[in-house]
């Protein structure tokens, strides 16, 4: 079976600006993929190419094997989309908007939609122009999930949502996941991606700089080990794969890449009173890709 999303050397330039460069993505059916990057990294451009709204300068994008630019209508029969900025018809009510979107999609799961309306606490009779951004966003969410589409493309779907709605959103994504639907989640809310996604890609200046399961990303990156000593901290330079900075009065914080054996052997001869190790959070991985410290060493 064809992948839900596949891009091959996808490149999009606007005049001299390179928005997306040589992007290769492959997302399986049923997979939840987190697409990370700061503002302007090219996330929305990628999505516009995936949806056939913008034409790739070179390379191609397919959804379930169907070319996104050449045959968007066929591709979109299995896809639902949530835009970062909800653009709807101001004079329609919520119920009318959902009815219209559902009809043009070609039918939705009415029962599920009713459940979602309740879950997201939506007033169906309100006109779109009277709604806040978060409430307009909820209309898109309810429509997209009620299609039960095989692939959900979500562009910063929780911007404007309050924490309660964020919980409802996560619950709904998990339902989609257990339903076997694929989700392409573009976001810069790292906790959201960490909680929901099987696999993560990190975009920087239009290029994919890192990709993998959360496990593998963590494994590839340094873990943090905080060590407290009895009395003054010793000088521990030159340990293979480890760098350290002072921590408090008598501690050291190590960043260890690769095996921790060499560091432990050195510590064995010191008066260690406490040792705490943790894997890097997604935030740390993310920041390492964008932080100044990372610029030279990669």
């Amino acid at each position, binding site marked *: 079976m064809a992948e839900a999303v596949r891009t091959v050397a996808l490149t999009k330039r606007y005049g001299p600006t390179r928005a997306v460069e040589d992007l290769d993505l492959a997302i399986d059916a049923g997979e939840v993929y987190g697409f990370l990057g700061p503002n302007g990294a090219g996330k*929305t*451009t990628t999505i*516009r190419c995936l*949806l*056939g*709204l*913008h*034409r790739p300068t070179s390379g191609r994008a397919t959804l379930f094997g169907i070319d996104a630019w050449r045959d*968007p*209508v*066929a591709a*979109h*029969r299995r*896809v*639902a*989309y949530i*835009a970062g*900025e*909800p*653009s*709807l*018809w*101001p*004079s*329609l*009510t919520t*119920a*009318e908007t959902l*009815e*219209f*979107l559902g*009809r*043009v*999609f*070609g039918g939705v799961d009415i029962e599920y939609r009713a459940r979602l309306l309740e879950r997201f606490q939506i*007033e*169906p*009779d*309100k*006109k779109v*122009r*009277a709604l806040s951004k978060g409430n307009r966003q909820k209309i*898109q969410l309810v429509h997209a999930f009620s299609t039960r589409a095989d692939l959900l*493309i979500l562009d910063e779907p929780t911007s404007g949502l309050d924490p309660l709605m964020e919980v409802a959103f996560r619950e709904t994504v998990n339902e989609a996941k257990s339903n076997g639907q694929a989700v392409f989640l573009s976001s810069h809310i790292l906790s959201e991606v960490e909680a929901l996604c099987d696999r993560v890609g990190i975009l920087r200046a239009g290029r994919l700089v890192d990709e993998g399961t959360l496990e593998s990303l963590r494994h590839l990156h340094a873990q943090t080990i905080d060590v407290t000593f009895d009395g003054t901290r010793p000088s521990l330079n030159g340990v293979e794969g480890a760098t350290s900075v002072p921590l408090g009065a008598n501690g050291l914080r190590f960043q260890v890449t690769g095996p921790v054996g060499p560091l432990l052997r050195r510590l064995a001869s010191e008066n260690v009173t406490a040792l705490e190790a943790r894997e890097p959070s997604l935030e740390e991985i993310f920041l390492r890709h964008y932080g100044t410290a990372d610029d030279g060493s990669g």
Partner: protein
Amino acid sequence: MTAAARALARRVVADGRTRTVSFAALFLLVTWVNAAGYRSTYPNINDRLRLVQTFGNNKAARMFYGAGRNLTTVGGYTAWRAGGILVVFAALLGIFAATRPMRGDEEAGRTEIVLAGRLTRNTEFAAILAGTGVGLTVAFVATALGAVFASLPLRPSLYLGLVVFSVGAVYVGVAAAANQLAPTRRGALGLASAVLGVDFLIRVVADTTDHFGLHWLTPLGWAEETRAFSGSSAFVLVLPLAATAILLAAATMLHARRDLGAAYLPARDSAPPRTRLLVTPATLALRLDRVVVATWTGVILAFALVVGSIAKTVEDIDLPESARNQIAKLGGIDITKASGYIGLTFVIFVFAITVFVCGQRAAAHDEETEHRLETLFALPFGRDPWMRGRALLALAGIASCALAAGIGVWAGAVASRAHLSFVDGMRASVNVLPTAILFLGLGLALFATFPRRAISLLYALVVASFVWELFGALLDVPSWALDLSPFHHVAPVPAKPIDIASALVMLAIGAIAGAIGTVRFRARDLAGD
């Protein structure tokens, strides 16, 4: 003014620069072409007297331009033909210039950002008005310059500019008040345009039925009573001045007392669901635009009724033989017959309906710039059917307006016992279609090719073509130059048969342009941020 207020006023001027420059060019050219053209086309007093006898007293001409004075002088003629039409354009300029930075910015949320700074609401309002006033002043200068370039004396030229400016100012006031009443820019535009429509209708009735007392009721009537180049009744300018002051004071007060984003006309923020017409994007567009189409149809019907009912008064004119001969030279149209008069007048309905087409394209364009097309095209719905649906909707609107024009003139004529058959009315209706379809096709091609500028380009094309048709003949230009305007190829139906060849050419160009537009739209990126 504080620095912040000055910055805002400058912003308003800058945002409106395309509009200001286009209108200024129009004002300058129309004034200059009329004055210079009149001098060369009617060099001696005999020519001029003949013109006054025929065209000057013609009710169709009066309907367009008002009742002229001193038409044997260059100034009097310019004040009549250029002034008569420019005051309407000045009103439109005032309406556009005031709704965009006031209600438009408020609706888009930009006003909120401005008011979060150091400006009070009254200062903000005053700053926008100042910016709008700059645009109007440019129109004033352009009109006066157009007259001066054609060697008319400076003082009355300035006075003519002032008359044009005064109507624009009143309509800035009207639009400023409408901005307080309506919650959307579109609503405010509609309200202010409705006022202008009533104003124009009253002026037409006054000038075509010789009830000149009605002039005192409306700004367009006041403009006529200012008598530029005919003895200048400058005291009349007190009326637009007072009206502007009262309207602006009322708008300022209403503005200061309401919540930002709110309006005095009730906006219903919730409604029970009505799923009628929520089937395809085209039916949705029909649902959203049906009030607009109905309003256009209604207004055109009303004007057509007036035109039709005036037709009888034309038949009663007893023209001298010499004048009849002169008219015959106009192309064998007898303007003393209802069909002749209606045939010559109908071009204004053709123009009005092409402006409707521009509005339809603007609504489609908004779908893209406000990103609703992104929502739509992310669904399994293609670009071709969207273009098709929009074009069909515009065609239906064109048909509805054209039918209203034909039925209106026929009903008006029948009611006043003039000689016009129903078939004549229908032929006049059908004669509208080729030009409207031509501009619809061009609009589609522009939309696909120049997504940012498409709408201003289309409006410019329509207005330039129409102005060229109205006044180009006054200039000593070769006939191919006059042939450039599509309006030049609109036969004066029902006085003459429909010009089938021209109609087919216009339809063909429209269809080809529409096809090019559809193909090119397939291949371009949707507008992003």
